Structures are given as structure tokens and as C-alpha cells.
């Protein structure tokens, strides 16, 4: 079997050599024949002639030998390709449109696939990632989806659980744990993650240089150690390999660098540095169960399922709730998510939708080309009949047609690959930066393989039906009936009608999906933000160093900074806040109680977002004060505790018709020390965490809270970006060891929040537009062709007295019936397709009737236009000429 295969392969590879061998073999035979003849007494001349005569046709014989050797297939293949190229060159218009459609379709698929491949499919740089899970708690009573762990509770989990090979702790966000690095040029900020010593071993990663943490690093009072990420080491430390063991100054304290991680290690995303969880804590903070900021990462033992882990962890949590009723409320349940899903979860649906859309687009391109090829197959019927009559088998004809399709697809695929290269660049330009690993997207081997497979599939998809139809030749019928009546024409026509119906249906699905996404985006864009994003500059400023452990120093620093900033020309107002709006789905949760609520009742309250602000914050952000007053510098530790709440909160938490002003609210009701606060103001709802939902907000004046600010916000009269140097100068004028980071305008933050929906919208919109264009070309094509075919019939109708309007109706009806069927099928398909989109839509129902009707109507109009042109042409037919038309 193998040797046969090798022989055939050899035959293909060494065609010339085998040709020569064949020549030589036959020459030898001829010579022996001649010798034999001479031996029986013929003259040399006679002998040669006799030999040649008996030998028969040499060429014929060679051909038969080649056939037997099965090199034929390859020869024919080249023949088919040459023929195919000729056909394509002869119809440049068709070739151009087909290649363009294919290139766009294949290019779009390749580009989207390359993104999915890099972002979702490529394994994470962790050993056996499928066993890694992320754990946190949710509160079923207060309906809070994310409750973090304290260090003490994590330690309990670690001790009591048996389902994990190892368990590690890390903060739920890298955010807000920035350190200022001094002593290495200009002070700069790095993001850090404080992790337990088990963090790196759990993930199964090792340091590139030095080591990761050991147990001794991660206990209260241990020497300060850090592990750096590769970029930090490369950009800030000049890839100094002697760095291990050296000191680095963070927040004014010395840390020993113990390791540098490999370049691909980026977890949690954005962390530039890792420090041991407990080294900077004292025994009291380690045991404090109220200080919750952690989540756990576990490596499941082999064979343990998530359900088993779930059961065990919930038992442990219930036990802890009995043991520490103050800290662990009874409604807590564990949430376990596979790590890969945790990292990519929210990028997944949008990317899958885009892939589905690009596949639909390619499908439409295929349908269109199949349609063209079918039409052409009918025209080429004469040629096919002739070839069949000359002895071409059906298989041979199908092979030839398919070769042409593959050729077309290959050209389209090659152009598509080139196009994908540009499309990826465009994609990366528009893509939101917060999709993990998006910056690594490129065309690699797996993407190329994908493109090749798609190209071949495409060729079969658009080529097979036309090939089978075209090669179906009934010689008797065809030759008898002459050239205009074509066997299989009716079959081909029916097939083409179905293709148009399919095209309309698929286009409708794409158009409806795109419209829903566009509407959702517009809704999102018009969401009342609750603040005025124009001309606002914000920057992170976390005060660092021993001095600022004193809350009065912190307050004093900010007060002086804000006063200096407000004294600058062009600054309208300056304020400070705990966490600025739209910084991501993070924030400070603050439970509350109203007067008369029992502790149990408060657990059912929605949890507001908590902000600590300076008096001018609302002015700087442009947040409307709806009722009451702003905070002033007179709201201090000595004066009565006050609070400002958001509009929706004020409306919902008090009985109707009560004036919220003057009402009492207690924050953190589980803490018996918390004071009752008087509501002094009501402000507009601000979308702090995400654009798509309104939460309750509570604001507390900065002199009545020990929680520190993290952001300054400045409203300017002109371009806010022009103020950046002033901001930096003023900060270092007050304290040169402090640095600002993450400087953004509020408009930039709004744009960042809109980036993902904008991305989906742009791409889907492009796909849908292109699909609509292709399918109107398709409808136009089939009708033009049909009018041409029916010229004779139309001529008779006109001759018999049909009016122009009758003919118009006749043709348009034909097209519109197909469109109508397509739309009905498309509408039902859309209902199924859009259901998977619900998580991507804001304020639009997936079955939004307005969208469905409007898009169907739009597509009908487009189809009508596509019908009208050929219909008009039909009415202009001269009946005399039409009757003569063959």
C-alpha cells in the first residue's frame, strides 16, 4: 500500500525522468524488433518499416502507459488550472467581483479568528491551567455578587479545605495598590499585587531570575521582599541580571528584589510587581476579619470537580459564619470560576458574535458566487455538451468545474490573507485595550491553517452545486433540442431561487443583529452620566510614605494642593475623590441602614457606592446638586455627621412624599460605632462603575472619614490636557517624593467605557452593510438573468397585448416573492440568533419589534430596487426582436 503510494508520488515528482524511461524502453523494444526482422532475412530498411508497422502508434501507446501510471490526473489537473485561468481572465468583471467578495469574506474571518485564537484559544502561561479556579463569595441576602475575603478567612480556607492541591490569595483588583518608586531617577508609580507565598506555586510558574516567594517572606514582620515583572526589569532596571538581592525604595521603604518573572507572565493583568501579603501587616491586621480585599486562586487536585469544591467550600463558609457571626453573614456562598473563564469571560460573547457574523458574511459571499457560477453554467451548457459528446466523463467535468472554483477561492483566499493583515491592524486600532492579550494578535501558523481550511471549504461550498448542475448532461436531449433549451435549466433555476432566498435570510439576520447593537450603543451613549465629562482632568495620587499615615497630614496635603490648583489660571474648580467614575467595575461598597430598620432588614438593602470627597468635587465634576447643599470646609470631625446621597437612592429608600433632607442614615450598620448621619443634599445619579447600570451613591465629607482620596479632579476653562504639566509641578512643589499616575480626562474615560460596544458596533455594521450590498447584487443578478431567459415569453405577452405595467409586475413579483420568503425565514432565524446577544445589549430587547420591522422593510426596499432595474429593462423589450430572440 505504502509502496504503491510512494510509486505514485514518485510518478508525480519525477515526471520527466519517467517519460525518458518510457521512451528508452519503447526504443529498446523497437530495436529488438528490427534485429529480429533482420535475423529472419529482411533488409535493414524493410526490417525497420515492418517493425514500425507492427509496433503501431507510439504516441497512443505512450498515452496509454501514462494513463496506466496514473500521472494523467496531474496532467489533467494542470490542464484544468490552465483552462480555469483562461475562464477567469475571459470574465474579468465576474472574477473581480468574486475575488473581492471572497477576499473580504475570508479576510474578515481570518482577522476575527486571529483575535479569537490569540485572546481565547491560546493557553495561559500556567501549567495545567484547566485545574486552576478563582474563588470569592457572594452575598445571597444583600444580593452582592462579589464579597472579598479577609486575610484571616483566607488562612481558614487554606487550612480547612481538602479539594485543593494548593490555595493562594490575591487582591480582587490590582488597582489602588500602586507604589511610588524613588531613588531611581524621577519618582514613578508601579501597580502591585500583594499575594500569598503560595501564589506562584499554585499557578505553576517560576521566576526567570532569582526566586518567587517562600513561606518566610509572607509573615508579619518578615523582611520586605518583591518580585518584579519582566517589563519593569527591562525598562526601569536596564535588564540588570545582578539585580537580585539589591534594594529598591518603595513608599520610602527599602525592599529586597528576590525575583524577576518571565515576559509572558501578566497576572493579575497590569501588575508590575508582587509583594508578600502579610509582610507589611502586623498580627492585628492579619487577624482582622473586617479588612476584606482578597480573592483566592486554587489548583484543584486531579479529578476533583468544581461541584465537589463548591460543596466543600460552602460547608467551610457556613462553619465560619457560625464561628464569626459579626464578620461572616449567613447569606454567603462561594463562587468558583475556572481561571480561563475568569480572565476572558466578558470578552468572549462579543468575540463569538463577531466570528458568527463574519462566517455569515462569508456564507453570503459564497451564495452569491454560487449563483453567478450557476448562471454561467447554463451559458456554458454548449461547451459542456460538446465535451461530454467527445467523451468526457461526468466526474471529469465536475473535477474541472471544481478546479475552477478552487482556483477562484485560492485567489480570493490569498487576497483575503493580505487583507487580513491590514484588517488586524485596523481591528487593533479600534479594539478596546482591556481585552486580554489583544496586543499580541498576529497572523501565525494556526491562523494560516484556518484560512486555508476556510478557503477550501468556501470553494466546495460555492462550487459543488454549480459543478453538479452543469455537468448533468443528457446528450440526446441537448443535441436534439438545440442550443437554447437546456436540460437541467429548470433545476438550476430552482436552485438559484433557493440561493437568493437563503441570501436574503442570512442578510436579514446580520442586519438585525447589527441594528440591535447600533441601537444599544446609541442608548448607552445617551445614558445620563450624572456628571459633565467636558474639560475635566483627573489623575491618581496616592500619598505614600511614613508621614502620610497620619490622616491629618493627608487632609492637609490635599487641601493645600487643591487650593494651589484653584489659584492657577484656567482652573474653574479642583476636588478630590476616593475613586473616580468609570474607572472600571470597582469601587467601595458601603452598606447602610435607615431609621427603624433592624440589622437583618439592612442586609436586604442594595449596597451603595461610597465616595469620600472634598467640597469642590461636585463643581469640578459637574455633578448636579438636586436638593440641599454641598459639603463645606465647615463639615469637620467636630460638627454633626452629614451625608449626601444620590437621587435614585433618595427616592427609593424613604417613604414617598418624605423630604430626604434631614433624614438619618447610618453607614456600615454592623459596626456599633457608626454614627447616624443627616442627609444634607441629594445629587444626580453618577455612573461610577459601569455605564449600563445605576447604583446608589453615598458621599461623605473628607474631614469626617479616615479613608483617603485616590484621585484629584480638575475642571478647566480650556483644554484639560494642557494642565498636566501644571498638575505635576504643583504636586512636586508640595512634596517632591510624590507622583501622579494614570492621568486622564473624563471624556477619555467615557470613551474607554464605550470602546467595547463601539468595537462590536463598527464591525457588525460593516459586515451587515457588506452583506446587504452582496445580496442586492445577488437579487439583481438572478432577475436580470431570468429576464434574459424569458425574453421570448415576454415578447409573446407584449405581442398579445400585455401592458408595460403588467410586465413590470410580472418581473417584480418574481423577485419579491423570493425576497418575501427570505425575509420570513430570516426573521425566524434572527429570533434564534439574537437570543445569544442579550448580554451585549443595553436597553434593547433582543426581539425588539421596531428593529425587526424596520430592518425587514429596509431590506424589502433594497430588494425592490434590485428588482426594478431588470424589470424596467423587460418593459423596454421590442416585441419583434424579443420573439426572434433565441
Amino acid at each position: 500500500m505504502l509502496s504503491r503510494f510512494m510509486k505514485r508520488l514518485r510518478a508525480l515528482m519525477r515526471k520527466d525522468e519517467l517519460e525518458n524511461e518510457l521512451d528508452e524502453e519503447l526504443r529498446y523494444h523497437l530495436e529488438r524488433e528490427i534485429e529480429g526482422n533482420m535475423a529472419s532475412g529482411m533488409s535493414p530498411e524493410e526490417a525497420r518499416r515492418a517493425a514500425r508497422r507492427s509496433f503501431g502508434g507510439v504516441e497512443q501507446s505512450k498515452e496509454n502507459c501514462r494513463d496506466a501510471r496514473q500521472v494523467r490526473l496531474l496532467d489533467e489537473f494542470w490542464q484544468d488550472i490552465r483552462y480555469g485561468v483562461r475562464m477567469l481572465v475571459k470574465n474579468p468583471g465576474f472574477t473581480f467581483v468574486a475575488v473581492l467578495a471572497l477576499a473580504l469574506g475570508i479576510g474578515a474571518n481570518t482577522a476575527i479568528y486571529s483575535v479569537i485564537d490569540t485572546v481565547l484559544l491560546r493557553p495561559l502561561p500556567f501549567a495545567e491551567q484547566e485545574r486552576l479556579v478563582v474563588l470569592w463569595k457572594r452575598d445571597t441576602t444583600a444580593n452582592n455578587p462579589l464579597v472579598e475575603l479577609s486575610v484571616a478567612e483566607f488562612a481558614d480556607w487554606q487550612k480547612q479545605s481538602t479539594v485543593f492541591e494548593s490555595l493562594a490569595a490575591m487582591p480582587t483588583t490590582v488597582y489602588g495598590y500602586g507604589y511610588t518608586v524613588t531613588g531611581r531617577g524621577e519618582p514613578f508609580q508601579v501597580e502591585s499585587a500583594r499575594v500569598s507565598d503560595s501564589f506562584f506555586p499554585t499557578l505553576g510558574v517560576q521566576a526567570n531570575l532569582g526566586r518567587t516567594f517562600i513561606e518566610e517572606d509572607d509573615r508579619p514582620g518578615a523582611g520586605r521582599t518583591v518580585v518584579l515583572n519582566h517589563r519593569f526589569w527591562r525598562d526601569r532596571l536596564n535588564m540588570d541580571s545582578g539585580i537580585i538581592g539589591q534594594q529598591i525604595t518603595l513608599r520610602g521603604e527599602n525592599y529586597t528584589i528576590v525575583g524577576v518573572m518571565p515576559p509572558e507572565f501578566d497576572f493579575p493583568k497590569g501588575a508590575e510587581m508582587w509583594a508578600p501579603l502579610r509582610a507589611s501587616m502586623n498580627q492585628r491586621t492579619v487577624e482582622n476579619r473586617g479588612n476584606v480585599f482578597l480573592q483566592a486562586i486554587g489548583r484543584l487536585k486531579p479529578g476533583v470537580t468544581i461541584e465537589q469544591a463548591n460543596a466543600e467550600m460552602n460547608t467551610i463558609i457556613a462553619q465560619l459564619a457560625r464561628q464569626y457571626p459579626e464578620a461572616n453573614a449567613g447569606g454567603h456562598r462561594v463562587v468558583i470560576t475556572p481561571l480561563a473563564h475568569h480572565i476572558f469571560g466578558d470578552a468572549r460573547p462579543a468575540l463569538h458574535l463577531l466570528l458568527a457574523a463574519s462566517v455569515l458574511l462569508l456564507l453570503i459571499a459564497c451564495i452569491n458566487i454560487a449563483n453567478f457560477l450557476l448562471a454561467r453554467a447554463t451559458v456554458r451548457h454548449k461547451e459542456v455538451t460538446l465535451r461530454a459528446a467527445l467523451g468526457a466523463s461526468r466526474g471529469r467535468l465536475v473535477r474541472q468545474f471544481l478546479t475552477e472554483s478552487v482556483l477562484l477561492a485560492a485567489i480570493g483566499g490569498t487576497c483575503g490573507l493580505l487583507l487580513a493583515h491590514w484588517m488586524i491592524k485596523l481591528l487593533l486600532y479600534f479594539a478596546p485595550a482591556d481585552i486580554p492579550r489583544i496586543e499580541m494578535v498576529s497572523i501565525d501558523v494556526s491562523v494560516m491553517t484556518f484560512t486555508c481550511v476556510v478557503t477550501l471549504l468556501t470553494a466546495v461550498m460555492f462550487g459543488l452545486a454549480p459543478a453538479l448542475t452543469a455537468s448533468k448532461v443528457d446528450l440526446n436531449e441537448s443535441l436534439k433540442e438545440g442550443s437554447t433549451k437546456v436540460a437541467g435549466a429548470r433545476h438550476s433555476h430552482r436552485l438559484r431561487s433557493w440561493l437568493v432566498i437563503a441570501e436574503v435570510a442570512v442578510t436579514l439576520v446580520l442586519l438585525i443583529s447589527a441594528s440591535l447593537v447600533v441601537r444599544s450603543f446609541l442608548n448607552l451613549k445617551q445614558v445620563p452620566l450624572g456628571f459633565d465629562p467636558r474639560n475635566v482632568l483627573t489623575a491618581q495620587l496616592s500619598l505614600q510614605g511614613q508621614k502620610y499615615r497620619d490622616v491629618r497630614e493627608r487632609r492637609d496635603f490635599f487641601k493645600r494642593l487643591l487650593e494651589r490648583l484653584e489659584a492657577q489660571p484656567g482652573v474653574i474648580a479642583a476636588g478630590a475623590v476616593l475613586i473616580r467614575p468609570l474607572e472600571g467595575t470597582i469601587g467601595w461598597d458601603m452598606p447602610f441602614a435607615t431609621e427603624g430598620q433592624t440589622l437583618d432588614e439592612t442586609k436586604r438593602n442594595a449596597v451603595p457606592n461610597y465616595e469620600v470627597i472634598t467640597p469642590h468635587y461636585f463643581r469640578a465634576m459637574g455633578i448636579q446638586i438636586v436638593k440641599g447643599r454641598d459639603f463645606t470646609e465647615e463639615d469637620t470631625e467636630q460638627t454633626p455627621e452629614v451625608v449626601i446621597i444620590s437621587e435614585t437612592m433618595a427616592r427609593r429608600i424613604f417613604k414617598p412624599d418624605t423630604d430626604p433632607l434631614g433624614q438619618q442614615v447610618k453607614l456600615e450598620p454592623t459596626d456599633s460605632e457608626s454614627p447616624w448621619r443627616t442627609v444634607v443634599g441629594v445629587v444626580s445619579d453618577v455612573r461610577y462603575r459601569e455605564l449600563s447600570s445605576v447604583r446608589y451613591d453615598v458621599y461623605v465629607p473628607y474631614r469626617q472619614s479616615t479613608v483617603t482620596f485616590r484621585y484629584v479632579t480638575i475642571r478647566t476653562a480650556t483644554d484639560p490636557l494642557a494642565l498636566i504639566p501644571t498638575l505635576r509641578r504643583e504636586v512636586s512643589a508640595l512634596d517632591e517624593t510624590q507622583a501622579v499616575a494614570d492621568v486622564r480626562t473624563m471624556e477619555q474615560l467615557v470613551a474607554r467605557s464605550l470602546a467595547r460596544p463601539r468595537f462590536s458596533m463598527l464591525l457588525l455594521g460593516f459586515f451587515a452593510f457588506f452583506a446587504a450590498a452582496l445580496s442586492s447584487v445577488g437579487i439583481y443578478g438572478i432577475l436580470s438573468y431570468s429576464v434574459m431567459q424569458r425574453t421570448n415569453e415576454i415578447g409573446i405577452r407584449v405581442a398579445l397585448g400585455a401592458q408595460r405595467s403588467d410586465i413590470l409586475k410580472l418581473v417584480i413579483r418574481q423577485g419579491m416573492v423570493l425576497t418575501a420568503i427570505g425575509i420570513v425565514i430570516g426573521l425566524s432565524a434572527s429570533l434564534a440568533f439574537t437570543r445569544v446577544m442579550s448580554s451585549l445589549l443595553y436597553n434593547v430587547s433582543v426581539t425588539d419589534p421596531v428593529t425587526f420591522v424596520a430592518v425587514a422593510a429596509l431590506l424589502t426596499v433594497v430588494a425592490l430596487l434590485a428588482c426594478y432595474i431588470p424589470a424596467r429593462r423587460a418593459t423596454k423589450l421590442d416585441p419583434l426582436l424579443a420573439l426572434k430572440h433565441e
Partner: protein
Amino acid sequence: MTQSKADLLQGTLDMLILKTLSLGSLHGYGVIQRIRQMSSEMLDVEQGSLYPALYRIEQRGWVTSKWETNETGRRAKFYSLTRAGRKQLAVEEESWDRLSLAIAKMREAS
């Protein structure tokens, strides 16, 4: 060529080639000669049928070919039977025997 010659039944050529090669390897010309000899000049195979048949049989793995020098020192392509070819020959001979027996019976009956 006045002798009357038997027409070759389709499919029998393969068997004849295999049969001649079962006695030793031969080049194409030799195969024709030997068939002529062995059939007492009754069967005459033309090269136009021989070579395609040889190539076909080789493709199926029943014979292999090798370039060797012949008795007069010229290079020629020699074919020889493979084990699969020997089996095939047995199969074909058996089916041929059955066929000729059947035909003989039919003729006796009439």
C-alpha cells in the same frame, strides 16, 4: 502473418504476462517473444497493449521493474513477479480453469 491467431479475451492478457514472468524476469520485448513461443505462435501480443498492461500491473504491485543490462550488454527494463503477483496468477488461473470448464460443458451439452 497468415496464421490464424486466437483473439485475446479481455482480462486474459494480465494472466499471460504474469504467467511468462513466473518463469523468470524479462523485458517487454522478451515477454512478447515468450508468449509467442509458449503459445506455439498462436498468441501475438502487440506492444500497444503490452506496455500499458505492464504499467498497470506494476501499479497494482504484482510486478516490479529494474533497469539491467541484457545478454548483449544493452540497458533494458526487466520486469519480475512479486509475491502478490504470484498469488494473483494463481487466482486468475483458477478462475480461467473454471471458465473454460464451464464453456466446455456448455459445448458438450449442445
